[in-house]
């Protein structure tokens, strides 16, 4: 079967699963949902079909499983959001549509991802600007103590999600250039400061901004991605260990200084020290996870809402969506979702391995690592494995910026994959052949 036909069949499989899930929620919640809403899922899956047709035309050699995986993950997300609040599901559906339009547009417009390399400093600065935006008075918005949102009138946007992509692009191109210098000749040799400087400046600025906006999850994510990419570029564990050491020291300092962080850590160590106050979210999340059993209560049948109709767990549709999912689909359902993430990460890394140039390897390796780390940070947080930091679950959580950014990442990965596979098969490169994007 050709790559694209594999993609189509997988996409149909994913559609079937999502449709079943949606129908199951609808059946369990007939009183609060309308039959019209069931047609949303058709539109939603139709959009993915269009995305598939575009990859068929534009990126015929791209990895065939990443798009269906994204469809399944966003589909599961929309289904869970629909179960939590049908009105939000519609909004999320619109965001997925916007993301897919950008995905398609990105594929058509960015004909050669290598061009990104040449504007790396512009992108790096743009990333920092994006991160600063929410802190600007007038357009900045603070939600739950973190200043991460930009209010654009009709909708609220989280520029950090886009900044994440830009920072990875910057790091990839910078690390590729300085790779050999950074690696050094001996395992203990340190690179000259002038090579390390710009790296630390851009990364440091990002971290400082994140600390200023009170976004622990973001800070942790950037730091981890930085270390992962440094390791990919240099292959030196010493950097990772040194980085972790620095992080531990930094974390200890922050722990001492910032009551916010100290609270998070002490809640993590003993959620039941204050089950109705500071520990409430985590305790309720753990209750939801533990009571799901092996197979869960069934979609739409979980104990998620009080008699007043408010959810027991705050931020159920964003940070804690996994808790809701495990409650209703059980440990088996939760493990299945985790498996989907591992599969996505596997395909991502596979694309990175098959890529022929260092920039592409670092770019896709970094983006995939960011994806995996982000998922782990929030999943570990809501299950009590690591201290809880507010961050979205890629593709699944409610939130437009996150879905859009992740679909953009998907577009980049598929572009790289298409190029690498063409090379391997001896096919002509896309950029050389095509005159106009869709004409081919």
């Amino acid at each position: 079967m050709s790559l694209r036909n594999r993609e189509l069949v997988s996409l149909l499989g994913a559609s079937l699963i999502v449709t079943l899930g949606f129908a199951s929620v609808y059946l369990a919640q007939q009183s609060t949902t309308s039959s019209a809403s069931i047609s949303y899922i058709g539109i939603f899956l139709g959009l993915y079909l269009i995305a598939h047709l575009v990859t068929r035309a534009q990126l015929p050699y791209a990895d065939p499983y990443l798009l269906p995986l994204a469809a399944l993950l966003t589909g599961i997300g929309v289904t869970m959001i629909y179960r939590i609040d049908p009105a939000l599901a519609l909004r999320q559906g619109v965001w997925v549509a916007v993301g897919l339009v950008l995905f398609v547009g990105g594929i058509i417009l960015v004909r050669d991802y290598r061009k990104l390399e040449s504007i790396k400093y512009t992108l790096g600065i743009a990333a920092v600007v994006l991160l600063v935006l929410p802190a600007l008075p007038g357009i900045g918005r603070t939600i739950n103590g973190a200043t991460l949102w930009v209010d654009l009138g009709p909708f609220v946007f989280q520029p950090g999600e886009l900044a994440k992509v830009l920072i990875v692009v910057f790091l990839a191109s910078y690390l590729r250039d300085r790779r050999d210098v950074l690696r050094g000749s001996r395992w203990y040799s340190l690179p000259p400061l002038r090579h390390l400087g710009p790296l630390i400046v851009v990364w440091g600025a990002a971290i400082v901004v994140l600390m200023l906006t009170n976004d622990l999850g973001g800070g942790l994510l950037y730091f981890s991605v930085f270390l992962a990419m440094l390791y990919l570029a240099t292959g030196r564990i010493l950097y990772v260990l040194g980085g972790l050491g620095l992080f531990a020291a930094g974390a200890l300092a922050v722990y001492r200084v910032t009551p916010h962080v100290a609270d998070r850590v002490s809640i993590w160590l003993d959620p039941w020290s204050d089950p109705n106050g500071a520990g409430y979210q985590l305790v309720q999340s753990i209750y939801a996870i533990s009571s799901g059993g092996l197979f869960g209560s069934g979609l739409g049948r979980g104990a998620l809402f009080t008699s007043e109709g408010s959810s027991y767990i705050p931020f159920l549709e964003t940070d804690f969506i996994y808790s809701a999912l495990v409650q209703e689909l059980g440990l088996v359902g939760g493990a299945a979702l985790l498996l989907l993430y591992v599969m996505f990460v596997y395909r991502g890394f596979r694309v990175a391995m098959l890529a022929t140039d260092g920039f592409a390897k670092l770019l896709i390796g970094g983006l995939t690592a960011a994806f995996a780390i982000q998922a782990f940070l929030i999943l570990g947080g809501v299950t009590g494995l690591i201290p809880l930091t507010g961050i979205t679950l890629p593709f699944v959580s409610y939130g437009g910026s996150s879905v859009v950014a992740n679909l953009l990442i998907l577009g980049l990965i598929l572009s790289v994959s298409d190029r690498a596979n063409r090379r391997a098969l001896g096919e002509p490169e896309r950029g050389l052949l095509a005159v106009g994007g869709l004409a081919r």
Partner: protein
Amino acid sequence: MNRELRRLFFVFTLLFAALVGIGSYWLWRAPSLEARQGNPTQIVRDVTTKRGLIYASDAETILARNRGRQVSGRRWFLRRYPTGELTAHVVGYTTLDRSRAGLEKSMNDFLTGTNSNLSTVLERVRSRVQGDIREGNDLVLTIDAKAQAKALEVLQGTCGSIVAIEPATGRVLVMASTPSYDPNLVARRFDEVLNQRGPCRPAAPLLNRSTQGLYAPGSTFKLVTAAAALDTGRYTPESTFVDPGYCTEYGQRVFNYSDQNGPEIFGRVTLGEAMEHSINAVFCDIGQELGADTVLEYARRFGFYEKPPLETPAEERVASGLYEGNQLFVPELESDVDVGRLAFGQERLLATPTQMAMVAATIANGGRGMEPFVVDRIIKPDDSVLSRTKPEPMARAITRRTAFELAAMMELVTTTGTGRRAQIPGVRVAGKTGTAETGRNDRNDTWFVGFAPVDNPEVAIAVAISDQSGTGGGIAAPKAKEVMEVLLR
């Protein structure tokens, strides 16, 4: 770089495996987490169960029902008590956060149907998939709604309790306690319940004074002393005594009840007359003659020193007997207890209204009491009877003859003695009044204990009202009359 990519992927796989691991850990911990307060799983399971209704004895008056409400696609059942404070202490309450009291607590498994109506595993699976609403069993109580309402009415403005039992079966017809509370307020306006004021302190509206209220039984305990005196064969109703107006205990005089003219002095009297006029000195002598062991042995036979057997939660029932501080105590030596004062219900003796109603019911039933019960039957959702309470006799307390003699003496109390205000026209009423000093000035525990009709007892009753300056005959007896009238109608 591929080696690094491979290693990194391996690390991420481990991290995600750890997430499955912690998920399994929480699943393993689920049973212990489920019991924690604030875990909504159990709450939602409870509240999506259609709890059984609770009816009064007429099987029509609803004491507890459900109000359905749609919550995020599921039907929730919130508890309502249409009769408000009428049976608050017996029925109790249940709230969303699973605080419960009364039968709502002790009969929870029946009311929620967790005693399982679905026989097979297959049926349970089908029911779960279809999202059937779990239905509980209904309860029909023995409480007579009209008499209960009358009891609350006559108790209004006092701190006290009325308990009425059908002597032949042990059915509890009335169990009223004041100040009462509105169980509908418990879930949301608990402060209002707690801050309620009453004529006594603390007002303690949540306390079921019928089974948890301990009062000095005073002269009503003379029934037990007289039972011991007659049953042991040491005395007859015609045994005579000389009453000097006091009896001597450890060289000190203990005087009879004082009216305006000082302590009453009756001179030569029979045991029957001593009962009729409630002469302390005579019972003091009898007590000294019989000894504390014998008196307490008979108290035990009537149910003292044990929690009255009822379906309400055990922690809402207390045993009657001698109390040292807050502890029930059994004297090891005769000298540990002042037997003369014990014999007329003082000393450190405390009794619940239910216990004293059991004393009356036992005498009324010819010396053999029936275990009191408040749940008549349990009805399954398909309207068939799941179980019906069978009246259970307790061990015989006294001989039929003793009971008969006591009944005759008690009838004199209401015809010519201290309990005349319990008289009901056309009905022979037996009774005994009590006015117990509590050590606080003008704060007597006042009692009336009795039954009617004497020849064929249909109701035995105990009325206890605390913090009174009057007497049992003046305060408790007329209330007993009013409630018995409703029950005998």
